[in-house]
Structures are given as structure tokens and as C-alpha cells.
């Protein structure tokens, strides 16, 4: 079963009806370059890097666990830290001003 949500998020939407299962079962399958498709860089589970030149090639790799890297590198803990820090500072400042 395909990981449609991640595929669409990383590779975009396409009408290509080629079955990813067929590709996976065919060791000799060759991906054709799609000149209209902007080359994407994908990152493998162990840090490997590959350029994909068609939607179906991208979909095949994403289905196999590769990602655009951008999704993974968002540091939510940093956002959490700065959001909490600014709220804390704001709270103490407001309290101090009120006390005056």
C-alpha cells in the first residue's frame, strides 16, 4: 500500500498511473527523466542522497522511506523553547510593571 500522503507532500500531485508495486517487483525498471519535473533531492534513512527527475521516481523513493529532508529537520524543540522563554519573560515583565 502506498504512502500517498507523504508522496503528495514531497513529490507533489500527479496523474501518473504507474503502479509503484510493479516498479518494486521489476529490478530492471528504468526511470525516464521528465523535463517538466523540477529535480528534487531526497535523503535516505541512513543519510544517503539522491536526485530524482520524475514524479514516479520521487514517489518510488518516498514510498521506500526516503524523504525530502525538510520535513525531518524542523526543530520543534527550538520553537517550543523560544515560545516558552518569551512567554515567561513577558509574564515576569508584566508582573513587574503591575507591581509598580
Amino acid at each position, binding site marked *: *500500500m502506498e504512502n*500517498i*500522503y507523504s508522496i503528495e507532500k514531497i513529490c507533489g500531485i500527479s496523474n501518473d498511473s504507474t503502479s509503484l508495486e510493479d516498479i518494486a517487483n521489476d529490478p530492471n525498471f528504468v526511470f525516464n527523466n521528465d523535463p517538466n519535473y523540477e529535480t528534487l533531492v531526497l535523503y535516505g534513512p541512513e543519510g544517503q542522497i539522491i536526485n530524482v527527475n520524475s514524479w514516479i521516481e520521487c514517489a518510488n523513493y518516498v514510498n521506500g522511506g526516503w524523504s525530502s529532508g525538510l520535513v525531518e529537520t*524542523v526543530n*520543534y524543540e*527550538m520553537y*517550543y*523553547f523560544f515560545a*516558552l522563554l518569551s512567554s515567561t519573560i513577558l509574564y515576569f515583565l508584566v508582573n513587574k510593571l503591575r507591581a509598580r
Partner: protein
Amino acid sequence: MILDKLKPSLLVVFIITLAFLNPIGNITEDIENLTTNSLSIYQNNSCNISLLQFLTTNGLSENYIFKFDGYSELSCFGKIKYIEPVENAYLVFIGTHTLINLLLQSSLWIAIAMMIKKDNAIKFRPSISIAFFSSLIFGYQFASEVGFNQLSNKNFSTEFSSNNYLLLSYVLTVFLIGYASQFVLLKRLSSIILYFPFIFLISGTYQNLNVNFFAIALVNFGFFNLLKFTKNKFLLTVVYIFVVTNWLNIERIYYEYFDVDKLRGFLASSNSSLSIFLWSLVFYFLLNGLFFILKNTNINDNLLFENFLLAGFLVVISGLIATASSFYNLFIYFFFGQNKISMLKITSVEGNAWRGFLPSAESAGEFYGLILFLSFWFFIVKKQNFEIKHLIFLVAVFYGLIRSNNVSATIIFLILVVVISINYFIRDRKNRVFLYFFLTVMFLISSYFILRQNTYAAMGHAIVYEGWENSKLNLLLDQDLQTVQALLVGRDFRTLNNLYGEQSYISSSLVFITEKLTSKNNISFLPNPVTLLGVVGLMINRAEKWGLFFASYNPGINDALFGQGVFNLSNYYFDINLFNDGLILPHSSILSYIVFFGAIPVSLFLIYLIYSIFKNAHFNNYKFFILLYLLINYIKSDSLLYLSNFILFYYFVYFQEKNVLKRETK
């Protein structure tokens, strides 16, 4: 009025519910029902399907076993992390995150604490610097527990750098928790401890962490206690510094990860020097914090009793609700900060015991027995008003006691009730003496009939026998194994000790008690202490467990006398490496504390405690009976390893003193 008090808690519950049902980043299209065919959709869309989406599509079925997965990105909080098929069911892992857990769970518990009435006069103001120093202690502790936190935090790193946002956020969040708990609890300082029975209900252990909310609050209060540094505090602190320095200098095998299981939040998961040092600090400030609160408490026994009764009732009811489904069970675990998830089944397990909501059936039985004793004292002896609600509470607590199958707690409770009843309700002194005499004779006769199948000598050997039997004798060669079996059957422990006592897999404590038992220097007319221990162990069904303890406890002389470090069982557990199935505790709080503090401090404390208990012994002092009840139970249970029981014990030790009794009567 009640609704007004409940408002903050309800608001936080609403926020937590929203956090778990958050739709941000979800798949926009409809998802299929979970079946074998659609399973891969769920598996391939890790953290893209919210819990709400899952529930609206699939509902709550018996086939779904919900679990939390804390090893997730922060954005995965409240999303379906993974689904794993198991026999006839699916394990549904819901993503959580340490930081969000800290924030949400603390907010809820602080909001609940706000329901307590404020004091008329406020003596202390919250301190930012105290919250800051407390957060540093817990921050370093978080970094020191490498094995535990690496397993449960995806971005865990021990690096103290400006890029380690998990650690920075953790320290900041603990700072806010500390400050908020000071802010709320200092306004309720004179009565807050009277609500401690609810710690049996709201344990305060954070999901995914080895930290407890109440420990954070108490450490903050510990600093307040030290603001005024008296001579006694100075002396005790100097002694403690020596003790901790000794712990840090012990040569030991380092274990990065010890699975603290149901003792989460109150036991170290590592025995690194940093971890030992930080747990020592936590213990020091925690004791000071408790002392600070108790010192500022206005005693109100009736309120405390009412709280015990209500807490007992709620614990039983929550345990029953938790059996309704895996989903409720999991969220009760989250909201109440349980150390261990409630039992999912209403049926009993091993030993016909049902622990329900609490982490151990044994401590559950002790808790319910204590509440029944208090009820007897207040309703029957002190003739306090008995209302219908009390009857409902008592039925639930009685049910809890029966289901916990804690025979010893029940027997001790009954003995106390009989003794007090005779004293209070039989006016004639002669009749009283006759009854006490009659009951003592009955007790001795029944003990004789229970134990008559064994000789005194055979009973006295029980612990040493179990110790050798449970040692790693399978490492011996076949020929040796036969010799050992023959020596064991013949109870020839002296030869056994001489032949194999120096093997690395035979513990030093087992060798020690074997030598004590078989020593030629024993004084013939005095009972051997090891023999006495064996007889007691056999009588209370602890011979095997204590034998196992001695088979595993392998200290050097220094750590046997002065301990291995507070709240640290790593070396006890792994040095001989006897245990394969889960967490097996010593089955005696006294033995556990000997591992922590060593034989000398524990003996001194016990002497002080027994002396002070009997110094304050009086039929009008119910705390005397409670301390007896607790002390006898703790000899055979691990309850003092839970924070709730630790606070309970500390409370009654502190308030047993006669001057306190006088204060109370005034």
C-alpha cells in the same frame, strides 16, 4: 462554589484533550477503517493521522490496545505513531513528547492544587532564584540518566550547549513548574500536607520521564527550609556531605540503564557518579521540603481522615473505570501520573491479588487497611458523625482491601482493632487482662499449629537455604552441582560456604549470613540473629524473597555499612545478575534502605524510631498505632520505595512526638 473551584482543572483537562485530538498536519482525505488490508496506510503515515481521526474512523474497540510512544518528534504529539498487529488485536501507539507531557500534566496538577482553600496569612513569597536552582538540579539529573532518557527521547543529548533545545526546554519547563508550584502551594502552606492522601490517586509521575511532580515541588520547598540555616541543619548537612562523598568514592561497576518500572520518578535509572550525586541532592532537598511543609502545618486530623477516605474511594473507583477499555486505562495513566498503568482486567492475577489503580497490590492493601483503621478510630472510638457518603467510601475501600489480598495488612489491622476495642469498650481491668491473656495464648497455639511441621532449626535455615538455592549454581560443573545439591539437602551450609563461598557469583551478603549461621562462636543460650530472621521470614512468607535478596546483594564492607547511594538499586540488581523477569524488589523496605544507606544508618534510624514510637505510646494517640502498622508492614513490603508512602511515613513520624500531641490537644 464547587464548580468555581473545578474551573481551572476543567480548563486544563479541556486543553489536554485538545492537544491529544489536535488536527494540525493531518491527512485531509478520509482514511479507511483499520483492517489487515488498510494497516499499511496507517503504518506508512506515521504521525499524519490524529487520534481524533483514528477514533472517529475506528471507534473504541476491544481489538485496539492503546499505548504511548514518547520517542517521537514534538509534532507527533497526539498523533498515531505506529500500529502493530498482534494476536487478535492491534497495538496503537500514540505519539507523546517529554516537553508537552511536562507542561500539560503539571498544569493539571497545579490546577487541582488550586482547589485547596488559601491560608488567611501568607508567610512566604515565591522565589525565582529557588525555582532556577531547582530546575538546574533536575536539568542535570535529566542529562545524567543517559540510558533511560535516550530510550524515551528522540533528540536526547548530554551536551550542555545552546543547540541542545531539548535540555534547555526541559530546564525552562521545570523552572516554570517549580515557580508555579511555589506560587500556588505557598498560599496553602498550612494545609497542603493534609491533602497528601491524594498522592495515592495523583501520583505525579510524568509520562516518559523518571521524574515526579511532587519531588520538583518539594525540592523547591527544600530551599525555603534552608534559608534559615540553624546549627542542627548545619551538622546534619555536614554528616550528609560525608555520606554522599563516600557513595561517590565507592568502586563500582557502572550500569547505564536500570529499568525502574513501577518505581519511576523515585528511583535512579543509572549508577553513574553524576546520577548518584544528583539523586542525593534531590533526596536532601526533598527531606528539607517535607520538613518545611510539616513545620508550617496546622494539624487537622479530621480533615486528613476525610481526605484519606475520599482518596481511597477514588483510587478504587479509578481502578475499576480503568478496566473498561485500554483507552480509558491509558488516559487515566496520563492524567493521574501513575508510575504503572492500572490493571486492564478486573480479574486477579498471581497470588489472587488485584492491584487495580495502584502500582502494587501489597501497597494497595496497606493503604486500604490504613484507611479502615482510621475509620475505626474516628467513627467508632472517637464517635465522629457517620454519613451515607462515608458508608459508600468504606464499602469501596473494603472491596479494595479484599481484592488486594494483602493478608498481613488485614491481620495487623484486625489485631489493632481488637486491642483498641478491648481497651476502650471493656471497662473492667480484670476482664481486659483476661482477654489479652486469652488472645495471646490463642495466638501462640495457632502459631504452633501453623509452624509445627518445621523444627526451629529448619525454619531458621530458611533464608540461607533459599539464598544458596537461588544463587547461580548452574554455573558449576556437573560434579560440583551434585555436591552442592547434597550439601543443600543436608543443610551443611558451613561446608557449602567453605567450598564455594569465594566464587564470584556467590554474593558477599550470603557468605556473611551463612558464616553467622554456622559460626562456632555463636553463644549457645542466645538465639542466632540469622535463625530468628529465618523464622520470621518463614512465618510471613518472605523466606524465599529474602533469600533471593541475599543471593543478589553483593556489597563491599564500606557500602554494606554506609550504603551504595540513595534511590539506587543498580548494583544490587546487576552485580550478581540473578533476575531475568522484570523488576524483582527486596520485598522489605528495610532491606531496600540498607542497600541505599547501609546497615549502620538504617539500624540507628530504626533504634530511634522504635524508641520514639514506644516513648509516645498511648491508647489515645492513634498515630502510635499507625506507625506500628506501617513499620510492621514495611518489614515485608517495598512500599517505602514509592513517594506516596514515603510522605505518609514521614508525616506520621514527624507528628508522633508528644509535644505535637500536646499541641494537638490544645
